[in-house]
């Protein structure tokens, strides 16, 4: 496969002040296809004296080149470096103090899923990885085996693993007849022209007993509540009837007295 330059990309870091040590300036650059790139660092000086500054360009801590630049009337100074490889590039400006800016050139990152995907023994599950903006050339799935990563072979075990690649930017790994061994991490690796990047998806396998426990607890609570309600009703009815008979007796007593009183 030919490494063909497709586009020319010019990047510029934000202008920053030389004379106070600010936090290092960093920029992430996502590269999808091969390109010729010009990285530019732009330095602004607050003072009016025309100073000369040393510029050093480094790739991953290895020095590429060193030179000197002088401030012009507009008090700006530029330095440009042409590159065509991935890596971390830093421009370092030095007079009395040192200021630098770093460009991180990367392939598109794949996001996995933060939370576990939950499934049950005997059930099936679909693990999804997406790369919406940048379309990978292909996808490879890995699963963790202890501390290693082993490729998932769906052609060897077609009734266990199926990879669905209907759309190029979404990959779906379907795992059938799940057992407790499948409770591990899975990685989807997207292959781009300039490199690869991985996303992580974790699978958690439960048995049917796990949700059954809260269900049985709630069902027991319902039965207890119903029993309490009916028992209370019977109790209050009994109380009412008891109070009713007492009243009845009382009035009988009064009547008898009245009979006695009346001559």
């Amino acid at each position, binding site marked *: 496969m030919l490494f063909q330059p497709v586009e020319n990309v010019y990047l510029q870091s934000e202008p920053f002040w030389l004379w106070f040590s600010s936090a290092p300036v960093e920029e992430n650059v996502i590269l999808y296809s091969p390109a010729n790139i010009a990285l530019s660092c732009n330095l602004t000086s607050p003072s009016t004296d025309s100073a000369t500054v040393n510029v050093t360009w480094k790739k991953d801590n290895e020095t590429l080149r060193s030179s000197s630049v002088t401030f012009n009337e507009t008090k700006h100074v530029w330095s440009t470096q042409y590159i065509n490889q991935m890596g971390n590039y830093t421009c370092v400006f030095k007079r009395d103090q040192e200021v630098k800016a770093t460009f991180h050139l990367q392939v598109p990152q794949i996001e996995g899923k933060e939370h576990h995907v*939950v499934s049950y023994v005997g059930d099936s599950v679909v693990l999804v990885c997406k790369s919406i903006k940048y379309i990978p050339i292909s996808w490879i799935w890995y699963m963790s085996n202890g501390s290693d990563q082993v490729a998932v072979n769906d052609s060897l075990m077609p009734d266990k693993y199926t990879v669905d690649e209907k759309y190029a930017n979404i990959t779906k790994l379907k795992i059938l007849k799940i057992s407790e061994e499948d409770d591990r991490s899975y990685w989807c690796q997207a292959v781009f022209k300039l490199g690869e990047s991985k996303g992580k998806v974790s699978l958690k396998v*439960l048995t049917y007993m796990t*949700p059954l426990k809260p*269900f049985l607890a*709630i069902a027991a609570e*319902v039965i207890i*509540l*119903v029993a309490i*309600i009916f028992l209370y009703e019977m109790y209050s009815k009994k109380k009412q009837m008891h109070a009713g008979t007492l009243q009845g007796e009382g009035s009988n007593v009064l009547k008898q007295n009245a009979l006695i009183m009346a001559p």
Partner: protein
Amino acid sequence: MTDGAHPEPPDGGWGWMVVLAAFLQAALVFGLIRSFGVFFMEFVGYFGELAGRVSWVTSIGIAVLQLGGPVSSALSTQYGARPVVMAGGFLSGLGLLLASFATSLTHLYLSIGLLSGLGWALVFTPSVASVARYFAKRRTFATGLAVSGAGLGSFAFSPLFQLLVDTYAWRGALLVVAGISFNLVAAGALLRPLEPEGNKAAAPEAGWLRLPALSSLCRPSLASHRPFLLYAAAFILVDAGYYIPYVHLVPHGRELGFDEYRAAFLLSSAAVADLCGRVAGGWLADRLAVRLVHSLTLWTVLTGLSMALVPLGRSYSLLMGLCICYGFFAGALVPLQFSGLAEIVGTGRIMEGIGLMQMVESAGSLVGAPLSGWLRDMTGDYTASFIVAGAFLLAGSLLLFALPNYFSCPLDSTTKEETTRDP
């Protein structure tokens, strides 16, 4: 209004337990249905089906809930509210339990849609009717408290269901939700009947066969009751417009350029306002010396107006204000709808009335959302949809004017009530 065959409503005492029962039922039926969207995404992912096919699960459930109204009222007229509601609670939990083992979408249509839907129908009608039976002076307030359970339920259940799905995946979550749904049985146990032998006295022929109560389904006596027909027709129109904002508010907000969370927040604010409106509307109706139908008309008109004005809300704060108004007015009319019905048909036939009204209202709510969506497709935005929805509500309120004795003074109706109540 009470007739000689029924005891005087206690207006308190055990009645508040009945309100609690109805509140729990509103939460466990409507709150549950409203929060079911969490499972929607899980079903789409698991079964690999289109969103349209998955949404039939809840649509069938709601349709069975509304169409089952008359069945539910006939059964509860015959056997009393308590056994019917407890059976309904059991069925709805059972449906969800069976759904947790589903292997296809059809399985879900049958277990959640049909079985749980039937359970919900058996729960809803008798509970609201029981509240109407237990209260007279404070009926509307009690009903408002009871139906506010729906709003509180959807608040509590949305995050709870999401948590259950994250912990147990949709199968385990449905199992736990089935358990939660079984609490409907406990709530039903609270619906103590007012007379020991149930409501058999309402149907004069009940002495000789159990069948006549069910045959009253085929020729309901209320179908020839003119005020009831007008009332039901008014609410068909109201229902056609009522649910539009719940369906189209968020897409409308997104189209105006607001992001997902701000648009969703519009709906949440309307829901909170709806909750407050239900309680406030009920409370106000019992306090003011205004006739129930007059207040009902007022709230319906205000809801219609605020809905029609929604398209005017171009800025976020104005739109939010209109949503809150809509929510409050829409909530306020709910308790009045049920106690207004109790006034028109009497507590003797309230069961039948609610059941029948539920069934005919489903025609309105089935038409409303698709019509509104069609208008949006034809005109390009939701302006026409909201205006037409408001118009439906205003038309419904106009029908209310046609009710008999509409223009009589409040004093006449209260003295009429008192004379019928004196022994």
